[in-house]
């Protein structure tokens, strides 16, 4: 297949589209929220599923539409490029609170006009008490809410937003169109009897699907009309013809099956963007684009209907459009998901259901398109197994070398058995794709609830030291005075108990939110493209999908491993430090000083301990404690001892250096999260499964975590994913990879994330590429699951910090996705710079 790696020139149109896309700060628009609310006001006494369908229909019939200059693929959720709509049915108060700061905040700012603010203020009045977020809150147990207030875990993603995180059956729409779906639904309806026990709900659901599918068809027809109007006004002959072709396409798809590759592209796009108009969920992932688009491409190339150049121009247009969709999050979440990212994961290569490698020409063209646009979306992934063509990986490595942080590499040999272990059929598992960052699933059949929460594995360790108390409050179970523990086993068991208790509360939080989505925001349009919703007569949110999961992710493996190892070694084996000393050292942050907020926290804790011991504490005493905590209040001798402890810790072997004893320990640490978790079930009847990745939350959530026994100072970032802690992997990339490979990646079936950073020189020349691929292959031979790379020099990043204006388009890999470097907060930028640079 030597023809596959021919580089095709990018058309000038693509530069123009990109330029226009990034010309201004993205803007928040009110139309969707306004229309949604208008519809809701008129459907008060209808069942919720019908209200959702009616609102979707009302929005699509009335939302302003636009065809951007030079576009070949049309359909925009907002009038302004990269703008975003508002979704008050999930949550809204955060946005109201940020009206005056969202344009100037450090992560992902958005412009919002005074007019928009006024419309939204009015709209929001309706939503008080009606959001999924408020309902979920009432469903949560008090102890769950307390654990969340104390930042043990955060289910923020679906608590405040739609769920997204899905790949629909694009293939089906390309083949039979929404008219085909409508026929299917009508058939299902005709089989219903009014006397059936579940008739009422089934009927309502199927009717809602009919309305939603028709709304999508009508919406496309609005574009067809607009294109004709614009063609009439257009003086440029070429553009006029283009507009007429656009009109033709939109009148045919997504109503009918696609007859050409161009129609298939347009049909795909309508599905992709409309899913994101129905709900605010992110990580709506195109999945195996190279597979479901291939028949159309092949037919058109064979018949001479299109050239390869035009095909890739269309793909480039889609790639640009994927960056046109946007989403505003609250300030805290924006830091956790920094980079305006929508995590639309598109994957190329891999096997078919029979286990045959199906890497094809389009797989190569997907990589080529990413090289052309050099934008963060789509989150491009490639599937790797023993049968993956070498030249496909060479092509992928060339993209990696550009420094864009794409693609991410996934190991079929781990993911397929991992999914089979979760109950997927082998055929389905072989056809997996990736959702969002790193989460595998079978397209068109799964409601995976990937990314369901961040669980900070370091916080339960803090609870072991405090016997369940945080900031003076008993927020968790008592596992005994840490000072009195006499063996490492006892200490480790206390940690497991704290973990188990908190994991249970997280499950409560996720299930509460899950139920709230089912009751308040079922999604009929999405459900029309997920098997077996039509058959079961219920929405995805109520358990209509074939496979149901909930996948919250734990993070902090590296810090937890190094921490537990330090305790085992220094306290119980070498007996050089006592647990009481460790406890104190952590409280005072190893004497390294703390900020006022932290001092306040410690003061509270000290005061509450005094009270518990039956002592009186006056206001003045509290002030004194605070002052002494803030100043350190540590004598010279004490500081020397603390420094000695830090030296002892730093001399210990660390995770990430291929030291078997430490790495096998990491495997156990990961089990403290993944094993208890898989025993739980969700309200849709599915199983919980662990992910081990942090998106970019390791920085903000690290800022809520005190010092840890691995010598990590209070409120500094936590290691990302399953990667070694920043700067502690000192033996090069193979050693780090070997450590990571020793974790059990099969059981972390919601995905693991391993980040490596390379200097471009490591990938220079053919040899650089070859060795880089060998590194991936050998890591995968040892059953690692995922690998991604930042290839950009440290100097470049520092210069970008100092001169952001010169680096508007600089894309880096953050964690599971690529983002614009300059849109990240300073602290996250620093974290990326600090990650060990694997030069050599």
């Amino acid at each position, binding site marked *: 297949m030597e023809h596959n790696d021919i580089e095709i020139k990018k058309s000038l149109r693509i530069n123009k589209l990109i330029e226009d896309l990034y010309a201004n700060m993205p803007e928040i628009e009110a139309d969707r929220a306004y229309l949604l609310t208008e519809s809701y006001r008129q459907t008060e006494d209808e069942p919720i599923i019908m209200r959702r369908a009616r609102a979707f229909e009302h929005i699509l019939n009335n939302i302003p539409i636009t065809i951007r200059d030079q576009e070949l693929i049309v359909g925009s959720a907002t009038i302004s490029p990269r703008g975003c709509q508002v979704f008050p049915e999930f949550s809204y108060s955060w946005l109201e609170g940020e009206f005056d700061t969202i344009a100037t905040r450090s992560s992902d700012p958005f412009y919002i006009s005074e007019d928009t603010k006024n419309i939204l203020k009015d709209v929001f009045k309706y939503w008080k008490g009606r959001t999924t977020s408020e309902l979920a809150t009432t469903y949560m147990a008090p102890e769950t809410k307390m654990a969340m207030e104390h930042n043990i875990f955060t289910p923020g993603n679906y608590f405040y937003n739609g769920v997204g995180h899905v790949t629909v059956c694009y293939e089906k729409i390309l083949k039979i169109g929404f008219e085909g779906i409508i026929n299917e639904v009508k058939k299902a309806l005709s089989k219903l009897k009014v006397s059936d026990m579940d008739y009422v709900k089934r009927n309502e659901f199927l009717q809602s699907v009919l309305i939603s599918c028709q709304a999508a068809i009508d919406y496309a027809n609005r574009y067809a009309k607009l294109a004709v109007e614009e063609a009439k006004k257009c003086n440029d002959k070429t553009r006029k013809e283009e507009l007429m072709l656009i009109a033709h396409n939109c009148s045919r798809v997504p109503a009918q099956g696609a007859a050409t590759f161009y129609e298939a592209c347009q049909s795909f796009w309508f599905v992709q963007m409309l899913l994101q108009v129905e709900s605010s969920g992110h990580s709506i992932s195109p999945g195996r684009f190279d597979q479901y688009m291939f028949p159309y491409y092949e037919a058109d190339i064979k018949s001479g209907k299109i050239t390869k150049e035009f095909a890739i121009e269309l793909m480039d247009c889609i790639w640009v459009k994927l960056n046109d969709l946007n989403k505003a999050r609250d300030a805290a979440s924006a830091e956790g998901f920094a980079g305006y990212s929508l995590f639309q994961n598109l994957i190329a290569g891999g096997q078919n259901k029979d286990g045959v490698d199906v890497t094809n020409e389009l797989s190569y063209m997907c990589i080529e398109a990413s090289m052309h646009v050099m934008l963060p979306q789509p989150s491009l992934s490639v599937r790797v197994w023993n049968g993956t063509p070498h030249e496909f990986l060479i092509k992928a490595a060339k993209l990696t070398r550009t420094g864009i942080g794409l693609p991410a590499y996934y190991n079929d040999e781990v993911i397929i058995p991992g999914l089979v272990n979760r109950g997927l059929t082998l055929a389905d598992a072989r056809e997996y794709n990736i959702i969002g960052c790193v989460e595998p699933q079978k397209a068109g059949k799964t409601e995976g609830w990937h990314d369901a929460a961040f669980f900070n594995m370091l916080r339960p360790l803090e609870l072991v030291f405090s016997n369940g108390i945080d900031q003076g409050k008993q927020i968790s179970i008592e596992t005994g005075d840490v000072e009195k523990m006499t063996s490492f086993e006892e200490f480790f068991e206390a940690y497991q108990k704290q973990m188990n208790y908190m994991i249970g509360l997280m499950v409560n939080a996720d299930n509460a939110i899950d139920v709230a989505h089912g009751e308040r925001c079922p999604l009929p349009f999405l459900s029309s493209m997920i098997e077996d919703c039509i058959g079961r007569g219920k929405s995805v949110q109520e358990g209509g999908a074939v496979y149901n999961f909930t996948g919250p992710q734990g993070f902090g493996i590296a810090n937890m491993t190094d921490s537990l190892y330090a305790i085992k070694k220094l306290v119980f084996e070498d007996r050089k430090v006592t647990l009481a000393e460790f406890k104190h050292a952590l409280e005072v942050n190893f004497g390294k000083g703390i900020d006022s907020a932290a001092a306040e926290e410690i003061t509270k804790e000290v005061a509450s301990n005094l009270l518990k011991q039956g002592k009186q504490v006056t206001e003045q005493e509290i002030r004194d404690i605070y002052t002494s905590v803030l100043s350190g209040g540590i004598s010279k001798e004490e500081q020397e001892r603390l420094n000695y402890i830090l030296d002892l810790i730093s001399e210990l072997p660390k995770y990430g250096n291929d030291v078997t004893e430490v790495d096998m320990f990491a495997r156990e640490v990961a089990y403290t999260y993944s094993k208890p978790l898989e025993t739980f079930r969700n309200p849709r009847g599915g199983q919980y499964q662990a992910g081990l990745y942090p998106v970019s939350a390791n920085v903000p959530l690290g800022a809520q975590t005190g010092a840890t026994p691995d010598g990590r100072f209070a409120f500094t970032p936590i290691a990302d994913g399953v990667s070694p802690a920043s700067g502690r992997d000192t033996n090069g990339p193979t*050693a780090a990879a070997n450590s990571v490979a020793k974790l059990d990646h099969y059981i972390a079936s919601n995905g693991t994330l391993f980040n490596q950073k390379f200097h471009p020189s490591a990938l220079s020349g053919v040899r650089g590429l070859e*060795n880089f691929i060998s*590194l991936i292959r*050998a890591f995968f*031979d040892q059953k690692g699951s995922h690998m991604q790379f930042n290839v950009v020099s440290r100097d470049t990043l520092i210069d970008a910090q100092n001169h952001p204006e010169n680096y508007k388009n600089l894309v880096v890999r953050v964690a599971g996705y690529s983002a614009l470097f300059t849109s990240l907060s300073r602290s996250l930028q620093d974290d990326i710079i600090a990650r060990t640079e694997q030069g050599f």
Partner: protein
Amino acid sequence: MEKDFTQVKGRIFDIQKYSIHDGPGIRTIIFLKGCVLRCKWCCNPESQEYEIQTMEVQGKQKIIGRDVTVEEVMKEIMKDMPYYRRSGGGVTLSGGEALCQPEFAVALLKTCQEYGIHTAIESTGMADFHVIDQYLPYLDLYLMDIKHINSKKHEEYTSRPNQLILENARKIAESGTNLIIRVPVIPTFNHRAEEINDIANYAKTLPGVKELHLLPYHRLGQDKYEGLGREYELSHIEPLSNEYMEELSKVVRSSGLQCQIGG
């Protein structure tokens, strides 16, 4: 009974994984301590003395050099087996000068070969040939420096004349060992086209030699001199531009050899 060569001890100062510039594929480099030459540009000055010494690194005293058995080194080497297999890589002995510890080095190479690991040495070639001859049966690749054809200049910059090196190069080549000649290109020492040309012409006469690598001078070792309390004599010279290196590689190619810039 034959001596258990896995227990032979040697003195190393570093093991570097994922090395991709000293031989084919992904390699682990074992840096042996001690060298005969004293090249003014040496980027590993801490490698030159055989004695274990301390060097200041980022404000901290670091001990340079440790004694290890072949078995201990093999344990580290074996960890990257999957990478050698995938990339056609292996192990490279470097230094210092690996010829200075023949018992240890040969035992290590022999053990590697028993495990099917590709072996290479990166060497000055500065030893009696009967020493080198012990290595050759266990080497898949010999990377040998020829730094200058003019013996006087060679001595001025490296502390030793070059006759023995040139003779050894020929003998190694004649033994049928896969030999690649490498030239560290040092401004003011050997960077002129005629100097490179002289080396290339000599290399061309070595039977079986097809490749010559030009290693551009860099200053990454400079801080180490300070850390050892030594003076870096070449602080006045600047690295050569990529364009200039390209010109030199053309000179090499015109002699009929393949040329690569960098290892």
